[in-house]
């Protein structure tokens, strides 16, 4: 089947999609957006998290056909059109929250969604919001630091605007 949808603001189409293919597979192998990662493909690790019509989802659990005509935003879409890093992306780098980085794309999308809903989450709120994203390298401390840093920068930016 042919699937057409919007990926990071641009229309895309994929042909000869097998009915069982996931959105993750279509993004990674057909559309040329490999940023979303394939760690468990079972909805357990969060590495493949993308926005689907503005809601974060595990793209491995979404059948490709389900995205027909819908809007997808991936980690690649967190960078602006000039290639400038988003606030959450920069905070993860600055805090040392990226080690192997395989969990990073999913965490970035989930954190972006968290801070969109609540720019100043408590530590427990952060832990709850990110509990579906496994990281095996960092011990999560620097991820906490990164989210706090992104939150502070977001609040400072809002205050200055």
């Amino acid at each position, binding site marked *: 089947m042919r699937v057409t949808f919007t990926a990071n603001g641009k229309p895309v189409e994929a042909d000869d999609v097998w009915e069982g293919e996931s959105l993750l597979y279509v993004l990674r192998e057909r559309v040329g957006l490999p940023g979303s990662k394939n760690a468990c493909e079972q909805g357990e690790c969060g590495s493949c998290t993308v926005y689907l019509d503005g809601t974060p989802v595990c793209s491995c659990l979404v059948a490709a056909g389900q995205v027909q005509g819908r809007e997808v935003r991936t980690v690649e879409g967190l960078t602006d059109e000039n290639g400038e890093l988003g606030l959450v992306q920069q905070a993860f780098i600055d805090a*040392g929250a*990226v080690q192997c980085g395989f969990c990073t794309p999913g965490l970035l999308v989930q954190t972006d969604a968290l801070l969109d809903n609540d720019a100043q989450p408590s530590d427990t709120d952060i832990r709850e919001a990110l509990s579906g994203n496994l990281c095996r390298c960092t011990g*999560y401390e620097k991820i906490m630091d990164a989210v706090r840093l992104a939150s502070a920068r977001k609040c400072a930016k809002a205050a200055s605007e």
Partner: protein
Amino acid sequence: MSTRTIQGQKNLQDIRQASKDGIGGSPLRPDGTLKVKGEFAYSSDMWHEDMLWGMALRSPHPRANILSVDISEALKLPGVYAVLTHDDIPGSKFYGLEIQDQPALAIDKVRYHGEAIAIVAADHPETARRAVKKIKVEYEVLTPIVTEEQCLDPEVHGYVHEPHEFKSHGYGNICHSQKLVHGGGVTDEIRALADVIVKSDYEVGMQDQAFLGPESGLAVPAEDGGIDLYVATQWLHVDRQQMAPVLGLPEEKVRLTLAGVGGAFGGREDLSMQIHASLLAQRTGKPVKIVYARDESFFGHVHRHPARMTYEHGATRDGKLVFADARIVLDGGAYASASPAVVGNAASLGHGPYNIPNVRMEAIALYSNNPSCGAMRGFGAVQAAFAYESQMDKLAAELGMDPVELRQLNAMSEGDSMPTGQVIDSPAPVAELLQRVKDMPLPPPLDLENIDVRTLPGALSNTSHGEGIVRGIGYSVGIKNVGFSEGFDDYSTARVRLEVIGGEPVAMVHTAMAEVGQGGVTVHAQIARTELGVEQVTIHPANTEVGSAGSTSASRQTYMTGGAVKLAAEAVKQAVIEKGRRRYGWTQTDLTLAGGKVVSESQGALIPLVDLLGDEAIDLTREHHHRPTVPFDKETGQGFGHVQYTFCANRAVVDVDVELGLVKVVELTAAQDVGKALNPLSVIGQIQGGCTQALGLAVMEEIIVRDGKVRNASFTDYLIPTILDTPPIPVDILELPDPNAPYGLRGVGEAPTVSATPCIVAAIRQATGKALNRIPVRPEHITGTL
């Protein structure tokens, strides 16, 4: 000291300060931007036009004879390009890290659940999956050999490998054994010297590395008949060394390039898909990509050895250790992998960082029909640390002593001897590290009136409101070796090039080091900046075009490849200075490079590198070998076997719901001596990550194997700590230089994984009063409903 000299030094300091991204600083990762943009190419992101997908058929049985394999139906499926069995292997059919006992594809029998029997290449992963299902295998299913008792009685239960198959075997189903005797050993006379004796059996379950990036890569057939492989691994050259004979190719025709690695932790030391993808590429003439699904990843790599251990310690009434006796049985599973080296570590490090006048130890690894076990972070030191630290707590309780004081009383320090007879010839601040974690402030006490229930054990499940919660505190310390031991000529190679690009002096560092997330690439750039006094450093992709870097394991890469980068950069520095001497006749003996210039320590800048180098590039390669070690004597365990030791101490604070059996680690504190923190941000990240894997082993992580079959090969059922399970991990770093190591550094990555598990269990014991001699601790162990 003349005024001029002082001015010169100040000038030099100013220039050096400009390079704040040298060693001791925390510059950001060179690959960080790509990683947060989603543009970093991991091995599973490899893509080639016209590529095929490879997949393996894996055994559902842990032990069976293969009566027949029929691939005809699979080959008929449209889109299938090749189906291969061991009959199609052009070269040697076996490989292995230490013992070549593992068939690339099963021959006549399978020895573990998940062993690869046949491989398929097809145009779509789903086609490959369907083809795999169409391969018909007839088995004669045999009773698997899975318990220690079965393994040690081969006349009754059989051999995992027939005795004639591999000469290197010990006897029966024992893959490797190591004994150790120190002082008077352990005899009745020596036992009689102790006022108090404690003895227990301990058990450690099978832990998995559970790196997030699945085993994957792309094999591309080359015009010269060779293979170009882009792969996630820990050691490119040892992969090649094992692959080439199987592919029937000379090593130079097997070229490996490191693709992005999504974590490793030892699980990528052995081959996984490398040979399979390459065989399929050879056969089809097309690029072949293999990406393991998560369940296949659990079958496709070795795990941490599960262990059964017996420990006995004797001490005087005032707490001085008199003797220690131990037997460690590691289940190595079907193939040897790194089992011999793991046994060596277990035996030599298995009595911990303590001075014990009389010691006995026997460590063995078994062959069984359980999943193969090999390298995982902590490598043979983890299992023993759980046992000896549990013993220290038990002994302290018997003596009525504070458990930290008992440890400090017996702690080894510089100048003491290991039970192997090796004198510790660099700082060993065991007592101080314990004191540091003890002195760190405790988290606020449990306040059930004002608590957010999400922070309680069971967290979001809202399972209780704190009725059955008890808090406990535990301590631990551990020892780990750095680098490869027992006479292995462990070395690394680095190539450093200095040239002018775009009007700037730029250094390039080329090594075969596998960057698996640990941050070696950052540190290499820091070393090059420090030694060459330049800002711009590029890191060449890691590949087999340069000499071996050895493995990214054993906490060795900053020591070994970092050391090689230092040597190569120093050589480049000397070559640059010599060039200047020849041209300008400099006679100063205090020349160095700093701030992009050749600098005299006393006189300041002499010439910019840009002017001195012009169009010439200086490109030099150096190897770094660590000091030699020797194998342990097989019977006595004596010998200078390890290159360097590293120590970490921990404190855990836990809340336990004693009714539900649930544990929440409230805080996990670490203090570690790192010799020199080349990049403090990365060092802390490594320690926190290592502590978290230890937390996983303490309370949740285990591959459940029953009758040789893996029951939880998924992230649904194999639990690794989430951000909710992981507490704040304050880290205190000590920097006592090791005179034998580059910059005085000490390997960092593994020590916390060795040491942090026991303190969590100790804290749960304190809260519950339960013995808890098995990890991971499960709810039923706490509630007593097992």
